[in-house]
């Protein structure tokens, strides 16, 4: 029996001039479809490294990562790109929109790369997503013309462009004010309500109650994994 997302004994170490630094240590992790997961931990605890394993951006030094029955670490670069485009939407903290394209263009580009949305449906889908994150009125502006919060919404809309079942975000609210942070968090919660699996790395100390599960990392290992019974 296997979970939707499954880490088996995942380790990741970095070697530099004979010193081996272990960023992740034997991580076993199971995440089910529709879960809203927060990953927390001090700076350098391995949060981003863990997310990279999940998105295929980086590969484990040892152990396996399986997502939706796919062995992510076995995919080659080009298949990985396609798989990622179809299965995972990624949101980063900084610099993620293509500065030379409009917000609409950013969404269209993502759909163009993956090609799973029929081309005549792409523009409508882009507008629907922008409406969903509340920035449809900015569709034809360049990213630089948007505030930080608006840019982050645009990035989320783009991450959803190819309708991936999983959304991961690495400190998406890291440099936003608390009001905007709350808005973004609510947006994620809505997405979970629509059936997406959302995994967010966050620094927030005061944790929003919307998370189903909070995984705390410490020195590359899981220090705590607290699930909250679903209220419904």
């Amino acid at each position, binding site marked *: 029996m296997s979970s939707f997302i499954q880490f088996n004994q995942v380790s990741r170490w970095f070697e530099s001039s004979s010193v081996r630094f272990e960023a992740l240590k034997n991580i076993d992790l199971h995440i089910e479809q529709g879960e809203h997961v927060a990953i927390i931990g001090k700076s350098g605890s391995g949060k981003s490294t863990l997310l990279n394993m999940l998105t295929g*951006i980086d590969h484990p030094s040892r152990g396996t990562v399986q997502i939706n029955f796919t062995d992510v670490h076995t995919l080659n670069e*080009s298949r990985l*790109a396609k798989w990622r485009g179809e299965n995972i939407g990624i949101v980063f903290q900084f610099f993620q929109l*293509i500065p*030379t394209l409009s917000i609409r*263009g950013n969404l269209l*580009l*993502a759909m163009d*790369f993956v090609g799973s949305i029929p081309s005549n449906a792409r523009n409508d889908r882009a507008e629907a997503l922008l409406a969903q994150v509340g920035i449809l009125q900015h569709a034809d502006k360049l990213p630089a013309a948007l505030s930080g919060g608006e840019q982050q919404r645009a990035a989320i809309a783009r991450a959803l462009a190819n309708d991936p079942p999983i959304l991961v975000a690495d400190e998406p609210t890291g440099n936003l004010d608390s009001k905007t942070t709350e808005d973004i968090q609510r947006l994620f919660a809505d997405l979970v309500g629509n059936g997406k699996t959302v995994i967010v790395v966050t620094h927030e100390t005061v944790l929003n109650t919307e998370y189903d599960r909070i995984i705390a990392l410490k020195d590359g290992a899981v220090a705590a994994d607290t699930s909250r019974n679903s209220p419904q």
Partner: protein
Amino acid sequence: MNIKLLKVIGDLRINPGRIILVIFALIIGLWGVGSILVSYTILGRDLNENFIRTIPPHAAITSRDFNKLDLAALRKHPEIEKVEFRDFATLRIQTHQDEWIPLWLFGVEDFNNLDLARIFDQNSNSRPIVPKDEDMLIERDGLRFSELKAGSPARVRAGGRVIDVPVAGISFDPAQAPGTQDHLIYAYVNKKTYTEITGEPSNQRLIIRFNNVKTTQEVQAAADGLVNYFKSFGITVDTIKIPKFMEHPHQWQLNTLLFLEGSIGFLAFFLGAVLVSQLIAAILARQIRQIGILKAIGASRSQVFQIYLTMVLVLGAISGVIAVPLAVKSGYAYAYFVANILNFEVLTASLPHHMYLYLIAASLLLPVLLSLPAILKGTRISVREALSEYGIQQASVVKKSRIIAKLSLPRNLVLAFENTMRRKKRLAVTVAAMALGVAIFNTGFNVQQSLKDLLSDVNNSMKHDVQVVLINQMPKEEALKYFSGIDNISRIETWNGGRGAMQNMIVSTDSGVGIVALPYNTDLIGFRSIKGRWLSGPSDPEIVMNQEAAKMYDNPAIGNSQLLSIRGKQYKAKLVGIADEFEKPKIYMAQEQYDAVANPEHYINSLMFVAKDKSYDKVLALKKNIEKAIAPSGLQVLYVIMQAERVKIIYDHLKIILVTIVFFALLVLIVSAVGMASATSINIMERTREIGVLRAIGATPAIIYNLFVAEGMIVSAVSILLGLLLSWPLSIFASKFFGNLMLEVELRSSFSKSGFVITLIATLVFGWLASRIPARKAIKVSTREALSYE
């Protein structure tokens, strides 16, 4: 519109300065390479085409017995393709008042039926005007340096007579060496007029084309066969002349030019290529994070590759649209320039279609090829690497700056130095490109200096001022008496000489070597020894050869006895020296020896005038006075020539090459300076953010400006130093190489002081501009803009 294309256009628009720089570099590169390609295509075929169009003969045979020849029967011979009479005489013609130069007069069998050694009407490929009896045609190149023109008579001197011959029209003979360079005029008359002007019978010279010959050797064999055939009719052949096989006499100049074009073009292209690939690499380096994002949102490597490929193709297309028409224009212009100097017509009216294809392909493919490494590197980078790109690695800088710190240099200079060291690879490429430019530029001057040295050698080797060469030898006193009243003559030395041959001669068809019989102790020859010494006295059988003669006889050993045949007499003499002299093959011997063997009457055939006042104008006046004295005298003069003219003739042969060398060298320097300017610009653009930080911590624009200029100057100083060092071996090689290519002698390598100064100043100015312009731009960026620069 395609969203990927939109992104490409967006990317191109975001940094117009850099994109313009890339396009500019591409245009320069494409333009340069394109014009070379175009002119190479035109020149490479048209000189030869012009030559071949004349249906040039393979050989010319002279005999006084051709009246015994049945030409119709000869034409039926299977080995003969074409044959006709084309008489030939060297006379003299007046170009300006009292200025006479050689006239090469051709007696043509039938102007209406030119089937061999064809000439054309001026500026066209149609038949020439048919001159009536007593009229002549002159070759168009002669119009450039004479007052001759169609419709008015020309003064011609044949033997002792002066005849006015009306010029009926202007012809074009692309098979001849250009008259401007050889300082002579070609003229064409019918047989009757030929006899009238020269006083010689016609039908004494046959020009022949053989069937099935492919080499000079085969022509030689066929000609030998013909000589035997003639013998059977009692026809004695006087001379056989076999020109280079199917090659224009000045093909060597064109070859040199084409080689120069090719090699310099390749170099300019190479430098341009380095520049373009650097710029594109810099653009891509800025896009690394974006590549990470593109991949994170699902772009495969090939999709990323496509995006940047499209970008480069767009750049190439824009550059091509501008550069290709320019290249065609300037390529043609250069071809016309060369054609004009070498006196041939550009026949390539329109370029072959594949040329355009090449040019378009070049504009699209070259940028792709040049940026391929950068694109591949950029697209291969993994998302993780792309997103965690930390920027400039500082580690290697630290060590060096510590060393610099110890030298207690001004803080600004230290900073400039550190910055210069920062991008080591790019710096190396920049310095190498600039150094190469400097080296070639300077080498151009040094080669030019070598050629100038050669000219001054020529000038020094003969110290007379005017030489009169007589057609027939005569008693000394009789020749001298005409010149007694002339001003500005310090003295006149009289020499003799003629054709001779050495027994171990290899080329049997050659008409031999010039024998010069002169006072052994003459001070008119500046003997520069390659080996051995000059003649020691009047009574020893000794000879001195110049290097061309030595080469001709397979470099005989000094001290050995050689058997010479002079005027049918045998003469045995010891070879005592080989002279370094840029001259036709010559053998020098003492007058007394020559007279004893072949000249019992002590006749002379050349008069060497030494002027009192050697200034050009005074010598020219002397020459005119000599001509004036000759005019009524009845003296049969082969030519009268000023030493300065002799030098000028050689100079005129080299001029086009000298000009081209410096022109191309300048081109390379400009391309490398543009390269340096853009490398500095990239450097500065990449550090826009750093400029912001510097400004934020209190650096004034002046400090930043000085910082960048100092950086640029450090780079140019290093480049210039390396370039000048590199130009040393390069000059040695180039002098040898060009000497062999052009003149079949090895030029001594020389150092051009003025060239050095020009190189130094030019490169420093270029270097200064190259760093000043981007530095000025850098300080115009506001602190806020600089800090938010991505």
